[in-house]
């Protein structure tokens, strides 16, 4: 039953993740009073890109070609570890989240190197900002998980997430909410959403993730966009597992609730994007430090 749930969750992630981008775009359109693109537009984009040929910069070499495929493979392995509600992913073992965080690190590393392989000043800027923000975002992710481990006294994602909202003494609700807030900020940073990065901007100087993939096209860009959707799914799954205080004990139900939570997360991200402007780049680290402080506050709650 459990393994079945993990497989279904994996399957749903692979199929539904581009829908998250569609939902975000629809929410933004509704807020702006537009009708917006079809919900399935990200799927159309990916399919269209898969059908195209490719243009490679003559500056680039194998690193540029390795980036998209390794990035997509890394995030898929990370998705295999990601918990479905209170239940583990396909791979679940003590310290699995360390591997997950580092698989995402590998994805970032190859994306950054692929960007630098083009020798473009703009992509260099994007790469530089990406690694800068990652320093704090990764720290928040790991300390947040450490706080959860301290609270639940468990060291695997599945055990942490299943124990979090069940009878635990002392109650961990406030911790879960605080860490969920910190992870929301990490989600916005890692997935290049407003207020950190604006995927729709038309000025390469101000972008982070989008500018790093300027030179990719065709199937490579399709892999990158699909990988980005999976990464968003991953963080949304971590977030909704924290924020939704419902554990029925029935794997399928919990997983369904978690998937619903993931879709709601997409709506929330869309609302944030509609309500906020992009921060100045200099202020992004400050926002991430806020997330870190919230994590420390959660730690204090456990210590209390």
């Amino acid at each position, binding site marked *: 039953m459990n393994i079945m749930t993990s497989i279904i969750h994996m399957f749903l992630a692979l199929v539904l993740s581009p829908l998250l981008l569609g939902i975000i775009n629809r929410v933004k359109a509704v807020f702006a009073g537009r009708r917006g693109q079809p919900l399935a537009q990200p799927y159309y984009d990916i399919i269209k890109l898969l059908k195209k040929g490719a*243009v490679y910069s003559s500056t680039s070499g194998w690193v540029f070609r390795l980036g998209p*495929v390794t990035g997509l493979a890394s995030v898929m392995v990370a998705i295999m570890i990601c918990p479905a509600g209170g239940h583990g992913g396909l791979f679940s073992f003590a*310290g699995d989240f360390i591997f997950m965080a*580092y698989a995402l690190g*590998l994805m970032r590393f190859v994306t950054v190197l692929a960007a630098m392989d083009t020798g473009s000043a703009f992509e260099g800027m994007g*790469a530089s900002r990406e690694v800068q923000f990652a320093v704090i*975002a*990764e720290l928040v992710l790991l300390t947040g998980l*450490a706080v959860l481990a301290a609270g639940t*006294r468990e060291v695997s994602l599945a055990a942490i997430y299943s124990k979090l909202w069940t009878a635990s003494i002392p109650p961990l609700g406030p911790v879960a909410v605080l860490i969920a807030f910190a992870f929301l900020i990490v989600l916005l940073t890692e997935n290049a959403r407003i207020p950190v990065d604006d995927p729709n901007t038309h000025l390469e100087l101000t972008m982070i993730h989008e500018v790093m993939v300027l030179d990719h096209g065709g199937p490579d860009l399709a892999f990158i966009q699909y990988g980005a959707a999976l990464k968003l799914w991953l963080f949304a799954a971590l977030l909704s597992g924290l924020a939704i205080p419902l554990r029925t004990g029935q794997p399928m139900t919990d997983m369904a609730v978690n998937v619903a939570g993931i879709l709601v997360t997409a709506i929330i991200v869309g609302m944030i994007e509609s309500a906020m402007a992009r921060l100045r780049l200099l202020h992004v680290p400050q926002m991430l430090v806020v997330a870190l402080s919230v994590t420390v506050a959660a730690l204090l709650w456990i210590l209390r």
Partner: protein
Amino acid sequence: MTMVLMLTSLAVLLFGGAVCAFTKGSGRGASIMGVVTSVTGAILAIGAAGTILWTGGESSLRVPWQVPFGSFYIAVDPLSAFFIMTISIICALAAVYGTAYLDAYRGKKNLGALWCFFNLLFASMLLVVLSRNGILFLIAWEGMSISSFFLVMFEHEKAEVREAGWVYLIAAHIGQAFLMFLFILLAGQNANLDFDKFTTPVGAAAAGTAFLLTVVGFGAKAGFIPMHVWLPDAHPAAPSHVSAVMSGVMIKTGIYGIVRIVSLIGAPAQWWGWTLLITGAVSGIIGVLFALAQHDIKRLLAYHSVENIGIICLGLGLWLLGVSINNPVLAALGLMGGLLHVLNHAVFKSLLFFGAGAVAHATGTRNMDLLGGLQKRMPQTAMAFAIGAAAICGLPPLNGFVSEFLIYLGAFGIVAKAGALGSPAAGGLIALAALGMIGGLAAACFAKVFGIVFLGEPRSEHAVKAHEAPAPMVLAMSVLAGLCVILGLAGPLAVRLVTPVAGQLLGNIQVSETSAMAQGLLLKISLACGSLIALAAFFWWLRSMLLSGRTVAAGPTWDCGYSAPTSRMQYTASSFAWPVILMFQWLVRPRLHARIRKEFFPHYAELSSHTDDPFRQGLFAPLFKWAEVLARRVHGLQEGRNQLYVLYIAITILVLLLVKVR
């Protein structure tokens, strides 16, 4: 048998060194002699070490010696064997690399002397981890410092090399002074300097003093902050294969010393663990931050050694913390993680120094902002360097991840077990927060190094005329890159290498349980890594299937419509790292030198950034100034007047008489 192999290995190395010293001519003979004896010595030593690691147990040899307090007492146990293996692998490959690297100096420099000191360095490092007598240990330690000093001084006609050499010599001897005090303390009442006859310090104060002397004395060699100041000067000054040996294995003898001595001075107190944890966290984070701010590729790698020594130190801190709170799982994970990182760092750091040497060899510069586009000109070096760069960032599926995972696991385990209540959990939190931060910063730093040096377009003539490294250099790098992958994918086997060492220090029964647990987890990680590689290969295949039959064109990089892009418009190493450095400018204190004319039509502007080591300027410079003032005061006592000295003698005799008569 083990001892025969070890002694033969030492004899071969010393013989080779002696022959090299007397070779004449272009240096070709010295190179051949050096590499043959180094590789032979390494194979013999690995044979001996492998036997001990495989079968466990200990093999020793004790010969009386005429030196006061000395005895020629050497032994191989799993701890020594592990370090012998690491030292031998790296030194053999460095010798192979050196044959080609030194070709450029043939006929200009005395290569015979260089190879002589190389063999001496190799032999003295082996003797350091073999010796079980204080005097013998100090002699080997001194031999290691002196021979590496002469290797650093290879290009002594350059002023900065001489400066680096002197700083290194002084740092090495200050460390050695602490070690002398340490051994005097440990010799105690028995006045016996054999390691097995040491008197265990009685009382918390004596044991604590011994521990602090150990950390300072060996930390000066290992490069703990603030005793790291010699590293960033000495590593760039030395020839690249020597830098690889010094950074890859020589500084690890400091780690060996800490582990060895701590295992001899009794049960550790909790604050010992704390000391190492905090030293490790500080060295790790400050090391990587200063690495980010460097422009010289070898100087950058030297700061990364400080960072990785910090990671090892975090593991050792968890070990001592685990022992002191009686948590065998934490102790075993910390120790195994720290030791495995010794091997892993030796492998990838030597690889990176080899790569940096190949770049300097091919382009004639170590300034990253003058490089670029080397991937096309030296593809094999680029491939090997990329693997090393990913490995040092701790990214799966490479070896750096395995050792960092063990340390993480220990840290998260203690945090979960103690439930954030009580100080051990705080220790775990420090370790994992430091590791997380180091990981992010290291990734930033190596994205910069690999991205700027090997990717993009050449930034200067130096890079345009680069060529692939000669075959021996490529061979050495390929072997190390292969080791990075093997040790990464075969995590459980890597853990088996350090299990006997941890068993020796912590008791076999408890360690074997933890080791089996860690191997089980790493097996799952290997599976996950395997699926990662399989998926990546699948997508690569899928893309080539999709693209077959379609137009795949080449074009210029998109530069936002700008019509005449040049390679000078690329992002530079300095600008890539600048935002991160600005976040930590309160710590790193970078300096900007700007020359911008305030005219209406300025035709010239200049901007450069520079980062000094604040510990050197702010801590050691005043300290040595103060020592000099003190020395001048004392100088008045000894001015060279014999009459005065006779007076001193008379006064001394008088005082002694008075004391005796009373």
